[in-house]
């Protein structure tokens, strides 16, 4: 049940369209900065497969320059195996 947060950087002049695109994705909650070209993104996905799908979609958004992972929480962190 991963929840992660990112700093998201749009291409120059593409912040608004990036906000709009991310806002359309079910898994995403966004907190845009009011004075910088930066958006805080929180993703909330049901499982790792969904998270991978979410990440892939985000990475194909043309307005996205790059994103950086900041933190996260894995509710089932203690149940991992090889």
């Amino acid at each position: 049940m991963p929840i992660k947060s990112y700093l998201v950087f749009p291409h120059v002049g593409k912040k608004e369209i990036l906000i709009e695109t991310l806002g359309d994705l079910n898994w995403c909650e966004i907190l845009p900065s009011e004075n910088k070209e930066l958006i805080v993104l929180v993703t909330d996905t049901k499982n790792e497969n969904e998270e991978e799908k979410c990440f892939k979609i985000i990475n194909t958004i043309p307005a996205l320059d790059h994103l950086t992972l900041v933190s996260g929480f894995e509710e089932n962190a203690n149940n991992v195996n090889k």
Partner: protein
Amino acid sequence: MNRREFIKRMAAASAITAAVAMFPGIVFAKEQMQNLPDGDILWKKSPCRFCGVGCGLKIGLQEGKAVAVKGDPESSVNKGLCCVKGYHSVMALYAKDRLTKPLVRKNGKLVETSMEEALDLVASKMQGTIDKHGKNAVSMYGSGQWTIPDGYVASKFMKGAIGTNNLEANARLCMASAVTGFLSSFGMDEPMGCYEDIDHADVFVLWGNNMAEMHPVLFSRMLDQRMQRKNVKIIDLATRTTRTSTASDRSILFKPQTDLAIANAICYEIINNGWMDTGFVKNHCTIKKGKTNIGYGLEDKFAFKDEAKGIDFEEFKEFLKDYKPEDIQELTGVSAKDIKYLAYLYGSPNQKVTSFWCMGMNQHTRGTWINNLVYNIHLLVGKISTPGNSPFSLTGQPSACGTVREVGTLTHKLPHGVVMNEKDRKMAAEIWKVPVENIQPKPSLHTVEMFRALDRGDVRFMWIQVTNPMVTMPKLKRYREAAQKDDRFIVVSDVYPTPTTDIADVVLPSAMWIEREGMYGNSERRTQHFDQLVDAPGESMSDTWQIIEVARRMGFEKLFPWTYDNHIEEIWKEYSLFHKGKKHGMVPLEVLKSEPGAQWPYVDGKSTKWRFHGKYDPACSKGDTYDFYGKPEGKAWIWARPYEPAPEEQDQEYPFLLNTGRVVEHWHTGSMTRRIPVLHQAVPNGYVELHPEDAKIMGVRNGEKVKLTSRRGEIELPASINERGKPVRGHVFVPFFDEGLLINELTLDAFCPISKQPDYKKCAIKVGKA
């Protein structure tokens, strides 16, 4: 607010805090800033367990377990950021097959025993080997993932107590060329600059360094700078196209090994165009040449000693005439125009330049030379030791610098200085309270030679801690068979089963990272402390305490008199005695405990960010100017080092060149990250990257099995075409993280004759459809 909503708000709070740390003055809407929870989780600081960047983390603790991770916004290293490995790092503590009981081999099988019995056996076998074959028949092989206390007690035990220099660490495989590069150019190890250079540099030149995957947080910081300052450029100078190439402003591909020629051509252009800082070179540099045609170390007991001879500037200019950009285009595969562009970037007086490198330059049979040559470039233009002007060798492991290079867990090293120096031996003997005769004055076996000695029978006992050489050694078959020979005894301390525990006679379960107290030292001379935050499972014990227990059983109680409760503090105090003074003063423990690290030399309560310039470094004695005090007269050495070819090149029988390396998701051999489901699923197995044209000619499609064969072995693995990375025609790339697909069966154990670091980036192979 339900729990899930609460966690989401906490994640948002972490990101906003990181944003504020990176962009002072950034504003978010007020309603978004309200009610952001601090959490019911207890957050404690620790450096990351994985790479050499040394990100500061906050580890979230709940009910005795580590359950969450966030970047520490107080850390100047990562300013609240975190990469995919760092975020998932705590999950590496809890995989189901964690080693929790010692294992001893009986009738060919590893069976559980008690820690007391296992430690007794290790001590008796080590002593028995010494009695029968002499003290140089025992050895210890550690790691850049050793904590500083682990490495310190290992050095004291092997060099001070037993009296052998058979102590090595896996940093020989990743950082040794950086060390010899620093020593030969500046007389002192480790970078003069720091990560803050990223905030000042206008141009970044990455020499064979896929930072987007290997040092992702630093790469993010560079990208952020490029967004904030429009003049910032990132140049990727590499042998294959990677994620770094695509994010850079310019990607320049060169033929492997010819970085030597490119660096010399840049120097030629700098001088030829009048871009040299003549005053700087005259006042702060001296020019040397060393031996040439120096070999590749392919034979057992290979020996080489370089010899520096002074030359004048005219001779240096004459030497560089062989490297006119137009004359080396065919050799390097780089156009004269691109070489001139690189020279312009370095030479332009108004641009601050930082060069980054890591394995591409260090895992190189002329690794010391290429380190020297990049320093040459910075020295010729006087762009060094000031903010943004930095030749910067990055490390790959969390404490390759702190433990291996600073503590000195290599055969020739002591915590201060080298075994060859009588003064350094006397200092060690005095601090360790051992007779100076105990410390042997000659280095014994570097890593490759140590494993060769195991094969020959010169070494009969080896204790391996925190590393996985049965995946990472080049020409692996020879060394795996060596370890399995009769009358060899192998002890392995680790946290999970690996191919190395498979060949062990005793396996000791280790307490990992935040399951014990320790310190790491990162690439920018930053030492970071972490407390024990969670209990270690079962009978796991820290590597430090394992060594102390064995040393005590062998009669060295007086050298290791500490209690379990105070041993880390006492070790730090004792170790700090080696580095007293302005050139290498270590950080007091109370500072380390309260801050997310500090940088040595730590003088008058302050970290030193830039060394060798009087404005920033209190150890300089020449006023407000440069003082390369590691060398006589305070002058850095510019080296005339030629291009020499790799030992194995493509031919008719083996027409492809193999390059090996890493991926962002996996830490080294994958023994931890492959047990983290999300990372394992992201890259579940090894693969071979092929150029699409080569694949087409062979009739190979993406995912189809391909057979790679070298003179040493063969392997089959799935093809990757136009995916993560793209090699040039005639080259392939294979990551080494997959213990099920051991690419080092194929690699060559040639090494740099000066650093003794193997070259994992170039060997000849043939490729065909499986």
